[in-house]
């Protein structure tokens, strides 16, 4: 059966299992339907997780975060596509643009599917948490929810990248080259993804601030400046 004939939502399980041969065949063949399926999985998976994340603050915040979370993934993939496609051959993996884009998107699809699967758990956690309001400051609850979010997102991201490493090893036939390419892609995607997250904040929201899609200061400063200033304050 050809790789294109197998197109169905069931292929997500193949991605999660990490069957490098089949995934390599898929990335080698360009299919608009498969691309659409992957984009839908990212929108649904990351969207549901985003909704669960924002729901604690307000239903409207849930809607905003549901839109913003997949947007970060898709914008990062698109904006870095050209750079990632150039870096792969320069670092020893001679794959075409479409294949590098598909490979990266595949890792995001895996991460989004995991996030989507965790979204009911996150919603349950939020439902059991005391409401977020300025009247009842709940620092420990806030920290617990924040750390849980970090743990789930980290798990999804690490799994997606482990699968991507397996795929790159298969495509390149050499683990050292695969590691080099993965590291370069990760560096670029994390660098841009962090800034996009900064621009598109808030995600969880704050009881003392209004619910809004963008903060008024969205385009003032950048993520790294903020981290730098925080470090300076800490040292002083």
């Amino acid at each position, binding site marked *: 059966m050809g790789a294109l004939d197998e197109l169905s939502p069931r292929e997500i399980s193949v991605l999660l299992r990490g069957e490098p041969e089949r995934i390599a065949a898929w990335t080698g063949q360009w299919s608009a339907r498969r691309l659409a399926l992957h984009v839908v999985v990212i929108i649904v998976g990351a969207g549901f997780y985003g909704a669960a994340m924002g729901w604690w603050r307000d239903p409207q915040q849930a809607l905003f975060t549901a839109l913003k979370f997949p947007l970060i993934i898709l914008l990062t993939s698109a904006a870095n596509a*050209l750079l990632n496609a150039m870096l792969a051959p320069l670092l020893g993996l001679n794959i075409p643009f479409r294949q590098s884009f598909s490979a990266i998107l595949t890792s995001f699809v895996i991460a989004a599917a995991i996030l989507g699967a965790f979204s009911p758990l996150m919603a349950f956690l939020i439902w059991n948490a005391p409401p977020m309001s300025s009247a009842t400051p709940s620092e420990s609850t806030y920290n617990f929810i924040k750390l849980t979010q970090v743990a789930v997102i980290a798990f999804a991201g690490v799994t997606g990248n482990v699968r991507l490493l397996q795929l790159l090893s298969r495509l390149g036939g050499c683990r050292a080259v695969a590691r080099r390419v993965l590291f370069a892609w990760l560096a670029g995607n994390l660098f841009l993804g962090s800034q996009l997250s900064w621009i598109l904040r808030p995600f969880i929201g704050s009881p003392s601030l209004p619910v809004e899609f963008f903060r008024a200061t969205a*385009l003032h400063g950048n993520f790294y400046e903020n981290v730098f200033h925080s470090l300076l304050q800490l040292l002083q």
Partner: protein
Amino acid sequence: MNNQNPIPPIPPQVLPPIPPVMPVSGSRSLGDDPSERVAIPNVIVAIEAILRQPRRVIFQLRQPGAGRLIAAMLFVSVVCSLIYGVVAGTFSGGMQLWAAPVKIAAGLMISALICLPSLYIFACLGGSQARLVEVSGLLAGLLMLMTTLLIGFAPVAWIFSQSTESLAWMGTLHLIFWFIATCFGLRFLEAGFSHSNARSLAGFRTWVVIFLLVALQMTTALRPILGTAKTFLPTEKKFFLAHWGDCLKAPDEASKSESR
């Protein structure tokens, strides 16, 4: 007696697909691979070749009629640096939308022109058999690879340009992108020299330091590239380290609205 248990025929061996890993440069002679002998007819193929088959570009630079390839690579370098310059110019907008691309493209070409004679001299001193046209071609390849990579960084640079006011931050970011792109470009140049029978790469490495210094000084000689000023070119002469020091010492003054 007939053999009742004949040995089954050995099935034809299915060779595993050749992994698309780039061959290590320098392990084979140039042109051994037939794909390296295929001519580079246009700029798109030139870009593709320098990313995926740098040996093909190096081989073609040794063939008669390499001038066309060099011209194509320089054309790509100018176009890509102009595009990246527009992205850099969006930080301040206004006049910088045309001034930044002009300065970046001109600065890059002037730096290359200034450094070309010394590159040829160092190549000869190192025992390289490369002719001037080949050295020029390798330098043009460096510029093309560097500026093509900068185009890859352009979307990231644009997003940061729109979300920060700090000139120091944007300057640092552009320098990091330029440095990464230059490293890949220099790697191509070194691969080219390693195929020219050079006995030593010490001269080449010295030239790399010179080229980096010239390019960095060019950013100060043609300032402002990111910020704005009343004049197109600076009226005061400065060393680039002194200029950067001034920018970092006065971050408030160095916002995009100030003349830096």
